[in-house]
């Protein structure tokens, strides 16, 4: 009787523990077009100006804030895009035409961040990052805008700066991951890659 009771308790627990482990590999077996790298020699242009991008928000009354989005982007974009292209090089200035099959030019459109009164209330940050991709002739072949976002506690007098840095880094990281996803899934870039491999 006691054993039966324990079985009723343990069986749902075992299901919760082991079911995801069975499901995850099954879903991982399917290969979508986005899973394979684009066979393109791409150049990621991260200029010193872009890396130094700061967004200033607020005023004297509400409190001025500076978000160092460029600094975060210049550490997050390259690793995120490495998985997209077969060959990715980071440069500080746009190359002359013909040097790269694809030139990736990021630009911050805008940044928004909410404010909260409570230290433990979550503030949200949104980063709009626009991509312009040019082929070797300098012609724009792809444009996309991604919206990265993240939430963190506003923080108190001691934790505010650290939390602000975290919300910037996470929202930019989200934008970088979304950028990689959009580029991988783009039929225009796949077509370009197919043209290069043939």
């Amino acid at each position, binding site marked *: 009787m006691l054993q039966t009771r324990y079985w009723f308790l343990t069986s749902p627990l075992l299901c919760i523990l082991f079911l995801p482990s069975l499901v995850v590999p099954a879903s991982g077996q399917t290969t979508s077009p986005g899973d394979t790298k684009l066979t393109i020699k791409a150049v990621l242009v991260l200029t010193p100006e872009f890396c130094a991008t700061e967004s200033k928000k607020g005023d004297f009354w509400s409190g001025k804030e500076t978000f160092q989005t460029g600094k975060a982007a210049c550490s997050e974009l390259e690793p995120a895009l490495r998985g997209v292209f077969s060959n990715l090089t980071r440069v500080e200035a746009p190359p002359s035409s013909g040097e790269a099959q694809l030139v990736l030019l990021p630009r911050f459109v805008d940044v928004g961040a909410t*404010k*909260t009164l*409570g230290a433990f209330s979550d503030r949200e940050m949104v980063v709009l990052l626009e991509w312009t991709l040019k082929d070797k002739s300098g012609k724009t072949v792809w*444009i996309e805008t991604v919206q990265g976002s993240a939430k963190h506690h506003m923080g108190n007098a001691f934790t505010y700066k650290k939390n602000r840095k975290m919300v910037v880094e996470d929202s930019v990281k989200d934008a970088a991951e979304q950028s990689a996803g959009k580029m991988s899934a783009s039929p*225009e870039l796949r077509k370009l890659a197919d043209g290069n491999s043939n």
Partner: protein
Amino acid sequence: MPRTNLVGIVCTLIALSLVQPAYAGEKFPEYPVHAAGDYAVTAEKEGLTIGLQPVEDLREQKTYFHTELTPKGFVPVFVVIQNGSSGHSFLFDKTGITYGESGSGGNAPDAHSKAGEATAVASLAALSFVGAVVAAKLMANATEVQQDILKKEVQSKTLSPGGSVHGFLYVPVQKKGPREKIHLRVPISRADTDETIVLDVVF
């Protein structure tokens, strides 16, 4: 007795810091999206269709943005652009959008003579940074409202065959009185050639 007051104040402050402010839970409803051809103002060229819906009713502005934008000098215009072609991709770059007051004759810009068209183009102003300007004009502490305006703004995008883009444009208008007709010019280029298709709409 003063000690009890101090404890009370500290407890109240701690409690306040834990409670979410009333506005933190506010939700901004999404504006309903329809097929581009279903809107009252539409234009179509080479498989590209644009549909517009100016949101001029102040109650509607309050519903979707939690603020009234017309008294601040802007009318939000919901835009849907669809690529109905089967084989061509198009590049929609929002920095190329221009607007201006429509001609007194009220003709569609497509029907204008070339000279008229050139004049109209010259008088059009860029719209690309208006979203940020609108947001900045709002109350400084209404950060959630500002952020929602940015989130809802239409953004540059590649329109693959069958793809679409939607969002708001914030067009500057007079704060008071009836507004003039607005001429919106949306250039979209083909991804495979340098050809640019211009969609003109008047509303």
